[in-house]
């Protein structure tokens, strides 16, 4: 075999054994050891888009990928520029990032933390990605965030709603634009009070895994603060598809509100089952029985169909918002793909822009420089009003939308209507809030 020849010839020719490092860049020049992981030395910079392409959240992942491609197009100066025109920072010039053309690689998280980490590792080790972003569940986001911390690249979280992502599992290299469970509770509570009063008995059905637990804790605390009574909190297996045996006892428990701390397929099924049981037609304790879904997404609403009508929940962003930034984004996304973007698409688009902008402002791709540029950064013009990237936990604080399933949708995308925009101040909490306590950011890791 000629393999030994290759080695020998190679050694003779270059004599090069490059320094130690976790990563190997796409375009590796024989220059000195890099200052940080995957320092881009050529004319381009590679970003890693790690989204669920298979599994139950594949459609959400596909929408995220569309938004990423749009963001890359805009960053490289293509298209109509989207929210780059409305963004308060004007550092981005449409010539890539720091003059380097933006390239990207994609991977499949399968909504499994193992697979997501494997995919992220291949982006870092094989493709030389300098930033990883994406994800459609909190377990995956936390797992990949941990990996990026260790590898020394920035992680810009996609759709992850668990308090833990910027709570007890926060990391110095990780940043979240999306809102969280606490914010959902804080935003929903006043609306629920107006709609349903202060004398209510809530029954919680909660998906039995990390996100469900933090969501349940947040919404229960927020509603109890209103004076609501929590009748029961019942955990349902993640793999459950038929929720009848969990929903049937609800009415008999004296509860008059059902809170479904479910996401994705779980939510579609539990809500469908609840409506089937006719819960919404019942009168308990002299009041109409109500259902609340703390975290809404358009894809879930689509899956549950007519069952969402009149049901309240919260969301990070909605395409029907009428501010300039949202309109610009909807226009540019809608023109390219023919339908309006989802909240997942919105958040990942923002994250990409925010990362690029931070790199421009910091003048480097070094994760520590970027982290510094993002920490405490205040901006607007990305569809959520004035926003703060808080330094203490790398969480964005911005307005949260309370939405309701629309009674008379005009198209297959027109499923939710915005009921209220809860201002950022109302959903802000102290960094050491007990629901977020227990973790440490650590220090930023540039790798290498």
């Amino acid at each position, binding site marked *: 075999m000629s393999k030994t020849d290759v080695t020998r010839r190679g050694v003779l020719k270059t004599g090069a054994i490059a320094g130690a490092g976790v990563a190997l860049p796409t375009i590796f020049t024989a220059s000195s050891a890099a200052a940080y992981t995957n320092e881009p030395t050529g004319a381009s910079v590679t970003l890693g888009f790690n989204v669920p392409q298979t599994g139950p959240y594949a459609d959400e992942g596909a929408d995220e990928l569309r938004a990423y491609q749009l963001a890359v197009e805009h960053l490289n100066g293509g298209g109509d520029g989207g929210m780059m025109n409305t963004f308060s920072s004007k550092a981005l010039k449409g010539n890539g990032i720091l003059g380097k053309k933006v390239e990207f690689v994609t991977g499949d998280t399968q909504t499994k933390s193992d697979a997501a980490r494997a995919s992220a590792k291949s982006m870092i080790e094989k493709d030389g990605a300098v930033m990883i972003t994406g994800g459609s569940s909190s377990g995956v986001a936390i797992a990949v965030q941990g990996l990026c911390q260790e590898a020394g690249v920035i992680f810009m979280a996609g759709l992850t709603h668990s308090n833990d992502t910027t709570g007890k599992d926060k990391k110095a290299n990780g940043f979240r634009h999306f809102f969280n469970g606490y914010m959902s509770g804080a935003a929903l509570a006043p609306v629920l009070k107006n709609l349903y009063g202060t004398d209510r008995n809530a029954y919680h059905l909660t998906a039995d895994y990390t996100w469900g637990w933090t969501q349940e804790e947040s919404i229960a605390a927020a509603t109890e603060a209103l004076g609501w009574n929590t009748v029961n909190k019942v955990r349902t297996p993640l793999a459950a598809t038929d929720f009848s045996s969990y929903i049937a006892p609800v009415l008999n428990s004296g509860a008059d509100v059902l809170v479904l701390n479910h996401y994705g397929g779980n939510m579609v099924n539990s809500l*469908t089952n609840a409506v*089937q049981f006719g819960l919404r037609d019942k009168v308990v304790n002299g009041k109409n029985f109500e259902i609340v879904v703390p975290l809404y997404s358009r894809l879930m609403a689509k899956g549950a169909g007519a069952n969402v009508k009149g049901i309240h929940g919260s969301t990070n962003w909605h395409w029907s918002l009428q501010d300039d930034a949202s309109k610009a984004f909807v226009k540019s996304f809608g023109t390219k793909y023919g339908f309006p973007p989802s909240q997942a698409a919105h958040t990942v688009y923002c994250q990409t822009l925010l990362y690029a902008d931070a790199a421009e402002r910091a003048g480097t791709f070094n994760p520590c420089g970027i982290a510094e540029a993002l920490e405490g950064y205040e901006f607007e013009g990305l569809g959520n009003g004035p926003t703060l990237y808080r330094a203490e936990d790398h969480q964005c604080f911005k307005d949260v939308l309370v939405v309701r399933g629309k009674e008379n949708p005009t198209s297959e995308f027109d499923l939710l209507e915005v009921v209220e925009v809860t201002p950022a101040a109302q959903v802000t909490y102290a960094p050491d809030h007990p629901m977020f306590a227990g973790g440490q950011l650590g220090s930023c890791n540039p790798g290498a």
Partner: protein
Amino acid sequence: MDAILLQILNGLDKGSAYALIALGLTLIFGTLGVVNFAHGALFMIGAFCAVTLQRIFKLSFETLDPTQKDFLGNPLKVKTPYVESWFGPEMGAAIIDWSVPLAILFSIPIMLAIGYIMERGLIKHFYKRPHADQILVTFGLAIVLQEIIKAVYGANPIPTPAPEVFRGSFDFGVMLGFDPNAIIYPYWRMVYFAFAAVIIGAVFAFLQFTTFGMVVRAGMADRETVGLLGINIDRRFTIMFGIAAAVAGLAGVMYAPINSPNYHMGMDFLVLSFVVVVVGGMGSLPGAVLAGFMLGILEAFASMNEVKSILPGIDQIIIYLVAIIIILTRPRGLMGRKGVMED
């Protein structure tokens, strides 16, 4: 007491789905001796027959409505289903509303055809192969089928509601003298249970009282001897495969309103239905039905708060726990025959 009655009702309903899938699996196993891991996929395809029919009914033409705007600010394209323009809005809406029950008729030829193609095209080449190979090739097929469905329909669940008249629930509690709302039960689930009972009854009657069924039963007991009698047992078995596919498909069609169909619903049911078959005893039709209902009821009981507070997480493992206990105490499941699938 009312809580227990309630969970028995729930269990019967869960059990109906398990029993129907397990029944089809057992028909295939009992007649052809093939372990069909693609059976869950057939259930899923059944549910997508309902989705497809609904889509067909909803096929629309578009008219521009300048008074309304779409999300980009252009005039809104209003969609009108053809059925509404052909039969008038009311009749059209009713047809769409009834798409799930109508899909029963729609799905039977489709499922029979799929079953026939599967058996002639793939399964028959695996009669002589080890059970492990049968499991694996059908598992591969299940992946391929579900990925095709995903490529066509996407990964998101698709709502397929039951007809308007079956929405809401019936209050058994009042009837039995309990408080109102103590035992409520959705109409559609009652329909599902009744439907399952009819299908199960029909399959048993078919096997019991028709000549075809008698031959098949004889073939299940001793294939070679029946073959020696000059009866073409293979052709009958092919038909049986089609029937089993149709049973799975019908179970899927009727299940669509209970849970919005998605491409992986077959895999979600696959392992459970296998456990049901094995607990019932490989190759035993009554065993499969009995085990289906039994596990459904046990699962419903395990999800009761009173039970969960004593044994946290019991609802997560109850089916497997029961399966282990039954297999250990009754080596061939509840009603299994000796020597089946033990090597």
